[in-house]
C-alpha cells in the first residue's frame, strides 16, 4: 500500500516523547507521532489520554523529558513556542487564546508580530481574515471579549489562518460551540488541505474528527494505542471494533 501522501516526509513529529507534569506525573510515555503534509491528522482517545499534551508538546509549550520534537525532519526539541510561526506553523489552543480587552483588529495585528514592519503583508493578512470571516470586519473595532463564543472562535481561526501557515494545529476547535456552528467549523477545516494547509486536529468530537481526518492516532494513557490511514481503519474489522470500543464511534467500511 503505497501512498505518496503518507510516504512524504512528515512536517512535524514527536519521536518517543515523554512529558511529565510536576516532575513525576507522566502524561505522555514514549509517544511517537508523525504529521504528514497535506493531510488532516486526527488525534483521538479517551479523556486524559494526553491528546492536548501531545499538541502542546508539538508546539513547544511543554518540554519533553525524553524524546524529540521534529519539524521537517529537523530536531527542534526545546524550541520556544514563539519560533513556530516563522516556520509556518500556527496553533489554536483549546483554552481561549484571545486578548479580550483588545479590539478584534488588534488581535489580528498582534498575530502579525513577526512581520509587523511589513505593512503590505500585515494588511494582506487582515484582508484575508476579514474575507474569510466577514463578521470580524464588521466587529473589528470591538473588544474581542465582547463577541459571542462562536465569533471568538472565528477570530482565533482567522487569526491563525491570516498568517498563511502551512500547518495548523487545532485543539478542540468546537468545544463550547453551538452544534450548528460546529458543523460549519468542521466543514471549513475539511477544506484546509485543499488550500495547501496541513491540519492536526485534537478532538473530543470523535465522530467529526474521524469523518474529516485522513490519518488517525488513537491515544491511550499517553501512548499510541493504534494509528493508521483512515481507509485502513475502515477496511480492518479489528481496528473498527477497537475504535468503536475506545471512542464509541463506528467507521463505515
Amino acid at each position, binding site marked *: 500500500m503505497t501512498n505518496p501522501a503518507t510516504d512524504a516526509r512528515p512536517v512535524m513529529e514527536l519521536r518517543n516523547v515523554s512529558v511529565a507534569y510536576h516532575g513525576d506525573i507522566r502524561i505522555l510515555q514514549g509517544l511517537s507521532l508523525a504529521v504528514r503534509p497535506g493531510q488532516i491528522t486526527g488525534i483521538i482517545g479517551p479523556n486524559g489520554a494526553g491528546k492536548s499534551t501531545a499538541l502542546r508538546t508539538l508546539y513547544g509549550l511543554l518540554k519533553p523529558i525524553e524524546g524529540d520534537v521534529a519539524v521537517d525532519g529537523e530536531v527542534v526539541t526545546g524550541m520556544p513556542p514563539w519560533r513556530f510561526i516563522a516556520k509556518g506553523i500556527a496553533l489554536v489552543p483549546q483554552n481561549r487564546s484571545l486578548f*479580550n480587552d483588545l479590539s478584534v483588529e488588534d488581535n489580528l495585528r498582534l498575530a502579525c508580530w513577526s512581520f509587523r514592519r511589513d505593512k503590505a503583508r500585515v494588511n494582506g493578512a487582515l484582508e484575508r481574515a476579514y474575507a474569510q470571516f466577514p463578521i470580524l470586519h464588521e466587529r473589528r473595532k470591538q473588544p474581542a471579549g465582547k463577541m459571542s463564543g462562536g465569533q471568538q472562535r472565528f477570530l482565533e481561526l482567522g487569526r491563525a489562518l491570516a498568517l498563511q501557515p502551512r500547518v495548523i494545529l487545532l485543539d478542540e476547535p468546537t468545544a463550547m460551540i453551538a452544534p450548528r456552528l460546529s458543523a460549519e467549523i468542521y466543514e471549513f477545516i475539511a477544506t484546509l488541505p485543499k488550500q495547501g494547509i496541513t491540519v492536526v486536529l485534537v478532538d473530543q468530537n470523535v465522530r467529526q474528527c474521524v469523518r474529516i481526518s485522513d490519518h488517525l492516532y488513537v491515544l491511550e494513557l499517553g501512548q499510541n494505542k493504534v494509528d493508521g490511514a483512515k481507509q485502513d481503519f475502515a477496511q480492518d474489522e479489528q481496528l473498527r471494533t477497537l475504535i468503536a470500543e475506545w471512542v464509541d464511534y463506528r467507521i463505515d467500511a
Partner: protein
Amino acid sequence: METLVIIGIVNGLIVGGVYALIGMSLTLLYGVLRVVNFAHGEFVIGGSFLAYVLFNTFGIPPLAALPIAAISFFGLGYVAYFLLIPRLARSDDPESMSFLMMYGLSIALAAFMLVLFEADSRSIDYSFTPISMKVGPVYVATARVVALGVTLVVAAGVSAFLFLTLPGKALRAAIMNREAIQIMGVDIVKLSAFAFALATGIAGITGVLVALVFPAFNAFSGPEYAIIGFIVVVLGGLGNPLGALAAGVFYGLAEQLATVFLPQAMAQIVGFALLVGTILVRNAGFGRWRVSR
C-alpha cells in the same frame, strides 16, 4: 477648614501621582512576569539617591536628572532581568521562589545603599525659583508642582505607549494571556525583559520625584513605597496599569485628606483599611481587567 481641605486635595494629587507611578510600574511588572517585585521600593529610592548624587557631586538639577534616571534604570532593569528571572524558570515552583528572591534582592539593595550613603536621611538641597506657587487660594512648593507635571507627562506617555502602539498592546496582551502572546510569535523573554526594564525605568523617575515631593529619604525607605505600591496595585486590579494610576491618585487623596480630618496616627491606618476593605469586598480590585492565570 476649607483651605485645609484644598491643601489636602492638592497634596493628595501630588503625592498620589507618585503612588500612581509606583503602582503602574509594579502592576506592569507583575502582569507581564507574574513576579511580585518586593525590591521595587529600593529601585525607587535608588532613583532618589541617583538624583542626590547627581546634584551634590555634579551639580545636575533634579529635572535634568530625570532622563538620566530613566535611561540608567531602564538599563539596570534590563540587566537585572537576565541576572535574576531566568533562574526562576529552573525551579519547580517559580512563583514562591520569586517571593524569596525579590525579598532577598530588596534586603541586598537596601544594604548596598546603606553602605554607600550611610543611615542618615538625605534630601536634595535644591530649590526652584520661585520657591512656591499660588494654586487657587493656597501656596504649594514649586518642586511639588513640577513633580505633579512630570507625573502627568510620564503617566500620559506610558499610557499612550500601552494603548496606541503595537509593542504596548503586546505588553497588555501578555498581561491578559501570557500563553497566547507566545503563540502569536512574540518572544516572551524579550518582552518580559522589556517590561522589567520599563518598570525599573519608571521606578528611577519616580525616585527623583520622591526626592522632590517628600522631605527626606534613606536606604531603608524602600519598603514604605513598595507597600503603598502593593496597596495601589490591588486597588487598581492586578495587572491593570490605568487602574493603578487611578488607585494611586485615590490613595494619595485619601491619605492626605485623612490627615486633615483624622488624628495623625489614624491617618496612616486609612491606607491599610482601604486595602483590607478592597480585598474583602472585591478581591480583583476595582479595575475592569483581571489577570488570567
